[in-house]
């Protein structure tokens, strides 16, 4: 099996952590199979990068914990977040989980470079 470059785009608000966690599971599985994976948060998806809202000690790992685990799956690069999406939602001054901020004009090239784009 050849390797492909995947871009996982998170565009929806994480109304429940469970759904976000499932999407992250999918992303981490790609990484576990040694695929090149990038994560991009845009539109309402950027809300996922707000620091932990509520994580129960006995519950499953929170999305924030899963995001923090990305390097252990070989994803050395932090997730990408679109600057304009943050600005439009008044989140540009907020403290966020570690992510690299990119401009909207860079998104098209990212989409074009990926072999597989998964909109989640």
């Amino acid at each position: 099996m050849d390797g492909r470059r995947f871009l996982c785009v998170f565009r929806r608000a994480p109304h429940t952590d469970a759904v976000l966690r499932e999407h992250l599971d999918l992303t981490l599985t790609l990484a576990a199979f040694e695929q090149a994976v990038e994560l991009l948060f845009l539109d309402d998806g950027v809300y996922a990068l707000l620091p932990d809202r509520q994580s129960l000690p006995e519950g499953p790992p929170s999305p924030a914990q899963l995001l923090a685990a990305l390097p252990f799956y070989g994803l050395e690069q932090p997730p990408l977040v679109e600057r304009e999406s943050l600005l439009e939602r008044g989140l540009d001054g907020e403290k966020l989980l570690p992510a690299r901020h990119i401009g909207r004009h860079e998104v098209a090239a990212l989409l074009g470079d990926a072999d597989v784009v998964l909109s989640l």
Partner: protein
Amino acid sequence: MYKVLVTGNMVTFALLINSAPHSAQAHAAFRFARAAVGQGYRVIRVFFHGEGVYHALPPSPPGGSEVSLTTRWAELARDANVDLVLCSAAAERRGVWSGESGRAVAEGFRVGGLGQWVEACLQAERTLSFT
């Protein structure tokens, strides 16, 4: 009816469905698959994840006038040799399937893991997600 337009020699598809069967996205996914198959393209695998696993609930007894998406997928899978796989973790979380009780999923579907989705992504020439 969808018209599937691809350039070059792209003839195989893998589909990811994250949406529940009543959603517009779920119907779009089915119409896409049916159109692709109808035009001679091959859909190698459809992976049901998240809310999409509800597709594999056995359809209620006949009587209603509406044919469920579950039945239509099963027919397409049979006619065009499409592999319908649902994520075991997502299905178990929603009570659609249970490994322990042996609860069966709808005919035509099988339970698998995320690895099978990765495999499909690597085999297919085009991958689409319906979220």
